[in-house]
């Protein structure tokens, strides 16, 4: 059962990019979510080939992925904010650099858990702040007629649900994976949350309407 959910989640990671390309005339390729969609597709391919088939040590991948994950999501939320909260975003970028350096310091190719916890916890905090700022702007401008037909609502919801639902897993990741021999029982939370994230991403892309600029 775990294998079915795992591989479904893994391969569905390519779907957002496929949707974006097959409907490229109708969708906005300059949308700030596009780098994250590329990252998701590349991560899917790497995890299948690099981790699954070639059995390359995942510790390197986790560390690299955290960096690209932050950069793509930072780009998404920063552009979404229309550069209003520049100071807050610059501060968050500096904090990320600091936390990433700390995670690099504690990282080793045999133990990824502490650095993964540091990266993911900072990432979660960043998402909570960015989501709050997005809703603040939303309520300030009151421009969108129906949120259910708005692409960014799906993207923001996807990130918020994913990072909120996996917050405990990453917070206690170090403890959980140390005491348990059945790691997949816990990791399943991340797999299910990722599945929801990717489904919401596809729904968001489906709702993308190309503006003139």
């Amino acid at each position, binding site marked *: 059962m775990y294998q079915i959910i795992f591989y479904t989640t893994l391969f569905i990671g390519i779907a957002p990019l496929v949707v974006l390309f097959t409907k490229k005339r109708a969708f906005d390729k300059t949308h700030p979510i596009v780098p994250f969609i590329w990252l998701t597709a590349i991560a899917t391919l790497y995890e299948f080939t690099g981790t699954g088939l070639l059995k390359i040590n995942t510790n390197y991948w986790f560390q690299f992925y955290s960096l690209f994950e932050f950069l793509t999501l930072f780009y998404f939320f920063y552009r979404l904010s229309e550069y209003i909260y520049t100071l807050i975003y610059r501060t968050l970028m500096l904090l990320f650099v600091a936390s990433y350096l700390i995670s690099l310091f504690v990282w080793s190719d045999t133990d990824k858990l502490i650095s993964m916890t540091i990266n993911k916890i900072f990432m979660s905090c960043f998402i909570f702040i960015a989501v709050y700022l997005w*809703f603040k702007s*939303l*309520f300030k401008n*009151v*421009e*969108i*007629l*129906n*949120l*259910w037909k708005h692409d960014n*609502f799906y993207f923001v*919801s996807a990130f*918020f*649900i994913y990072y*909120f*639902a*996996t*917050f*405990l*897993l990453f917070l*206690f990741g170090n403890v*959980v994976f140390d*005491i*348990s021999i*059945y790691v997949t*029982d*816990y990791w399943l*939370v991340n797999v299910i*949350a990722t599945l929801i994230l990717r489904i919401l991403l596809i729904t968001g892309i489906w709702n993308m*309407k*190309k*503006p*003139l*600029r």
Partner: protein
Amino acid sequence: MEYEKAFKVIFWVLSGVMFAVALGVLMFLQSIYHTVYAKINGKTITELEEKAIEEQPESAEQSFNPFSEREMEVIFYTIKGYGAVEVADKLKISKRTVERHKENMKDKTDSKNFTGVIYYALTNRLFTDKDLKKLQNH
């Protein structure tokens, strides 16, 4: 083993609660937002959507957009008050190309001047809501 089993159950329950809370927060916020939007506009979202559907052109032929993406951009910036040179600068094309686009659009809509083209674009709802909002705020 018992200890680990209990830990696992607590972990799954808490993760489920976290998921439910995230979903609840989003549902609550979207509901509040739609209420605020409806209050500002004096109508519910359903009524506003029905109104938008009613105002749309009836046939597919009427809603067909004869303009290219670039031509739509020329109309957009012209409505914003940009001259041909400024539009050319904005779109990184030559002034001559902008004028050619304008001529083509006049031919397509059988308009005597460019105001006719703008009228055509607006009455046929060729702009997205986002673009119209930008024009209104200008």
